[in-house]
């Protein structure tokens, strides 16, 4: 493994600052292994396609925020509320905040909504005022002597409590609650300014805590964490619905690293969050064991694994699929001519093995090459640029040929995507088979786990395969591409074999043999998957991959007509 991927634990801590260490107790004990002054060895055996990252729970991120607040409080001599508002205003950039504050404290406090601008010009030499911004009770409600009418809802019931920020713009507690709750829930906004028009004061945390209910405050805290994470390029919030974990991944954070690394990370949680209802301990255990990992890309917006292909190419491919979906559907649903007798052929059914009714010529629907070169399995057609296919296509129009080429990759990509979507079915079917096996054989629950392992492995490999088609579509012709497609074909074959095996009916007397076979094939498929991922990742580090289109951060493509659409 090249050392480009390695960094010491110190570097991880540097995410935040040179002078701070990460709050302890949040790094799940994985750094209890430092040895004196030696560079820390990366965890176990990290593969070329894996990179180091940390999963942080929401409380762990909150601890990091508290540290920053504490730091600013100490340096600027302000209270927690003020330090928090200042930091949020400056996007958690402590250095810039200190600089600005030293330059003009008043201006900074006004801009952050901590204080109101003073009506008259302030002498520049004036020392900053840092009084508490939270005053729960406004001194004088609009009307004198006890009776208060809320200026928002016009309620004037006797026991009504007027609330205001430092500015004194009072409203009843009900209106404040409705206002702040609507900001937080409907607008996902953590900056709640005073309701008075033109008043820029921002409600500090202690005011918000007092004004809204517990649920609302929890949501508010999550918004604060999201904002903090959004301000720090080394952090990313887990995109899975209702997950509140964060991943820290400095090595995937710079744009330049994205030509050599595919920063796929996992937030540490599994499965979908339960909708509010707390899980029992056993339910929690089941979820942890069976739920899907929250995998996402740290480098781009794709919220799933897109290895082995780098972000820029994966994004390019997804955009192309979106843009071309109409053309692709048109072409797919249309007829083609038999490459031999040029009579019109219509495709009916999913199989790509076509036979011309007139001349009995057999050919592949996708690449138009003779079927005889495909063997008996469709997956031999992972490679598009076969001589025969090229010749057959030359007869067709050029633009059509490039669409065909796109479709070749697209169909395979979509096929694996579809299969991955059906993974839940596969898991359910597998579970059933496992139960069946326990009944019809002497195998225990533990001993039938091999089926589940196989299904999981298949799922993973299909994700890899899917993206290899996006990669191959953009790879420039040449030896490297051929080697890539060789690896792809081997994985494709291994996956189909294992998948067939999993679907085969179970005969009680064959279970021990089946178990052996499945286990062997699972190991094999795992190995093939590793080879594809490992070799591609190494290729990126070595700069081995060249593209047929221009890709951000890579060398411009050599002129290669016909391939790019």
């Amino acid at each position, binding site marked *: 493994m090249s050392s480009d991927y390695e960094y010491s634990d110190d570097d991880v801590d540097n995410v935040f600052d040179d002078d701070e260490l990460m709050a302890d107790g949040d790094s799940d004990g994985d750094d209890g292994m430092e040895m004196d002054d030696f560079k820390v060895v990366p965890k176990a055996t990290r593969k070329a396609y894996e990179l180091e990252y940390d999963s942080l729970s929401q409380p762990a991120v909150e601890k990091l925020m508290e540290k920053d607040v504490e730091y600013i409080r100490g340096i600027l001599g302000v209270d927690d509320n003020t330090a928090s508002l200042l930091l949020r205003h400056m996007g958690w950039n402590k250095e810039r905040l200190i600089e600005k504050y030293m330059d003009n404290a008043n201006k900074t406090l006004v801009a952050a909504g901590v204080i109101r601008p003073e009506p008259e010009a302030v002498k520049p030499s004036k020392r900053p005022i840092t009084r508490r911004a939270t005053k729960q009770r406004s001194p004088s409600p609009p009307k004198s002597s006890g009776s208060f009418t809320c*200026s*928002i*809802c*016009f*309620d004037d019931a006797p026991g009504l409590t007027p609330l205001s920020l430092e500015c004194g713009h009072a*409203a009843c507690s*009900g*209106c404040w609650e*409705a*206002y702040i709750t*609507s900001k937080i829930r*409907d607008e996902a906004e953590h900056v709640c300014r005073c*309701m*008075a*028009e*033109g008043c820029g004061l921002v409600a500090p945390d202690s005011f918000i805590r007092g004004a809204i209910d517990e649920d609302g405050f929890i949501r508010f805290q999550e918004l604060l964490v999201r904002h903090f994470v959004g301000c720090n390029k080394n952090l990313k919030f887990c995109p899975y619905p209702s997950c509140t974990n964060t991943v820290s991944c400095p090595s995937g954070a710079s744009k330049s690293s994205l030509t050599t690394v595919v920063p796929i990370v996992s937030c540490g949680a599994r499965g979908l969050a339960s909708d509010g209802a707390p899980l029992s301990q056993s339910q929690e255990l089941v979820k942890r064991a069976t739920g899907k990992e929250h995998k996402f890309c740290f480098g781009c917006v794709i919220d799933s694994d897109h290895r082995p292909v780098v972000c820029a190419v994966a994004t390019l491919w997804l955009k192309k699929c979106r843009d071309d979906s109409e053309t692709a559907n048109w072409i797919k649903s249309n007829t083609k001519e038999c490459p031999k007798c040029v009579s019109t052929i219509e495709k009916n059914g999913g199989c790509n093995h076509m036979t011309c009714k007139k001349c009995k010529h057999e050919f592949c629907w996708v690449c138009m090459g003779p079927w005889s070169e495909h063997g008996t399995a469709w997956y031999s057609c992972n490679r598009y640029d076969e001589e025969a296919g090229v010749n057959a296509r030359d007869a067709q129009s050029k633009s059509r040929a490039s669409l065909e080429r796109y479709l070749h990759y697209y169909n395979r990509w979509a096929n694996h995507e579809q299969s991955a979507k059906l993974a839940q079915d596969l898991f359910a079917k597998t579970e059933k088979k496992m139960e069946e096996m326990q009944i019809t054989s002497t195998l225990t629950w533990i001993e039938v786990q091999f089926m589940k392992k196989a299904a999981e492995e298949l799922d993973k490999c299909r994700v890899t395969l899917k993206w290899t088609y996006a990669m191959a579509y953009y790879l420039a012709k040449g030896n490297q591409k051929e080697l890539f497609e060789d690896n792809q074909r081997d994985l494709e074959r291994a996956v189909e074999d294992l998948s067939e095996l999993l679907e085969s009916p179970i005969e009680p007397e064959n279970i021990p043999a089946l178990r052996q076979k499945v286990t062997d094939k699972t190991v094999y498929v795992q190995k093939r998957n590793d080879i594809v991922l490992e070799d591609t990742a190494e290729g990126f580090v070595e700069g081995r991959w060249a593209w047929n289109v221009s890709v951000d951060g890579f060398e411009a493509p050599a002129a290669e007509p016909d391939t790019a659409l």
Partner: protein
Amino acid sequence: MASISSRRLQKELTEIHMEGCPVGITLVKADDFETWWFTIEVMGESVYRSEVYTLQFRFEPNYPISAPAVTFVVTDGRKAPLHPHVYSNGHICASILGNEWSPVLSVVSVCITLQSMLASCKKKEPPVDNDRYVRTAPDNPKKTRFVYHDDTV
């Protein structure tokens, strides 16, 4: 819980009945606390001189916490004014109806703001992106995230 909007709108309505609307603004219909109609007219020298437009306000139960949905009525022969911030479907691109809405603003203050928005207009022309917007606009303008053309309205 009785909605905030009913008490507040009752109060605004009472004030309108007692004090009347500012010049050029007339209450047409306020039968409930969901939809109100006003007509507005620019007084004095203006490119909209002696033209009367109808404004519709729609309120959610948590008005005035949430801004009212305000549009020019474009049915039954009524038209939206030709103005760089008013789309031909009646939608209005004004920041006080969006991110600069404040719960202390009122129906009348919105009318006045829109009236002065028209009054300050020197040349009648539609928004540059009118056709594109109108083709895809949601029914409720509050669902649109306007990029405000300028900060003055």
